[in-house]
């Protein structure tokens, strides 16, 4: 049995991860962990011992490392879906501008200025 693939090529949108089945197959454990962070108790348990919490959800080493380093791009590459990852970011009080700056390699001030500039022109 050959490694079968879908006949339709995957659409590529520059700078834009599309959370399709291919991404989903990598990320289930990571996203399941992040979904659990809707609960305050779970957020506190994670803060208290991230390694043990990641272990409970059977994260891959790549996913653990991405979480540990709070590297959003690495989390995305490890199958994270931004809707759930946002809850992990929330634990560290990182808002969408903080993670925008991190992913684009800008300073927070530069990222905010870029957003404001789009309103001006």
């Amino acid at each position, binding site marked *: 049995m050959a490694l079968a693939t879908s006949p339709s090529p995957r659409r590529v949108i520059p700078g*834009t991860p599309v959370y399709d089945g291919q991404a*989903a197959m990598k990320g289930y454990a990571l996203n399941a962990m992040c979904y659990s962070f809707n609960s305050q108790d779970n957020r506190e348990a994670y803060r208290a011992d991230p390694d043990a919490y990641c272990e409970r959800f059977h994260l891959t080493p790549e996913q653990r490392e991405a979480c540990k380093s709070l590297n959003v*791009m690495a989390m995305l590459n490890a199958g994270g879906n931004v809707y759930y990852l946002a809850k992990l970011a*929330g634990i560290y009080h990182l*808002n*969408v501008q903080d*993670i*925008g700056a991190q992913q684009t390699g800008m300073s927070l001030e530069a990222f905010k200025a870029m957003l404001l500039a789009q*309103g001006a022109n």
Partner: protein
Amino acid sequence: MATVIGGYFTSHVPGIGHAIARGLKQDAYWKPFFDGLLPVQRWLADKKPDVAVVFYNDHGLNFFLDKMPTFAVGAAATYRNADEGWGLPVQNSFDGHQALSWHLIESLVNDEFDITTCQEMLVDHAVVVPFQLAYPDASHWPVKIVPIAINTVQHPLPSAKRCLALGRAVGKALASWGGDEKIVVMGTGGLSHQLEGGRAGFINKDYDQFCLDHLGPDPDALTKHSALDIVELAGSQGIEIVNWIAARGALGSGALVQKTRNYHIPISNTAAATLVLEPAA
């Protein structure tokens, strides 16, 4: 016979909830957006709807990847808001309108929409924020709701064309409803924005203006783009425009008047917009 008073469309950025909680409405950053809601508040105070049919997308509060519906229709007696993990103050619950929910569900399944029915359902900021904006002084929500969630989380996403068809089928069901309620249709989310990836912070004013210009008079114009076209044009969360498109469909095929429209960049990472469309007299 029930009356559809019109459609109220707005962004639902969580940051709006934070700004309300912190009393920042008059702050220079926030004022251009919040001021855009004043005509909506007056319109609702004037029209006094009894029920809201709310097209929105869940952000990982009620749905997880184990059971991710393309279209989910609420049929609960009560819808609770809950902790989403970001410190947003939990808002009051909403009363459901179960009889209307089941009427919509019967009609939608009959029209071959393969919906998921939700007799218990938490509603997140995408439902709550638009009500905080519309009824800023409410001690309880003055309308019952029927929430309809559209998948924007896990691709493949439904096409804009399918979402417009869903909305039109809801509009048809509302037209056959035997009650005498006044109904407002709501579409929440958007406009262009993107949170993740190297293009984080992406905004597309041209596409947003195209949407705002055509939504009322020619919603089919918005369905020439596939879901992935819209992700490219509007950013990966800009796809939330499908909630607006579905809500527009529920307003039916009659002519609409634009009662108010506001567009402001940025709110948080988002091009924020507010729109009210009303059936022409």
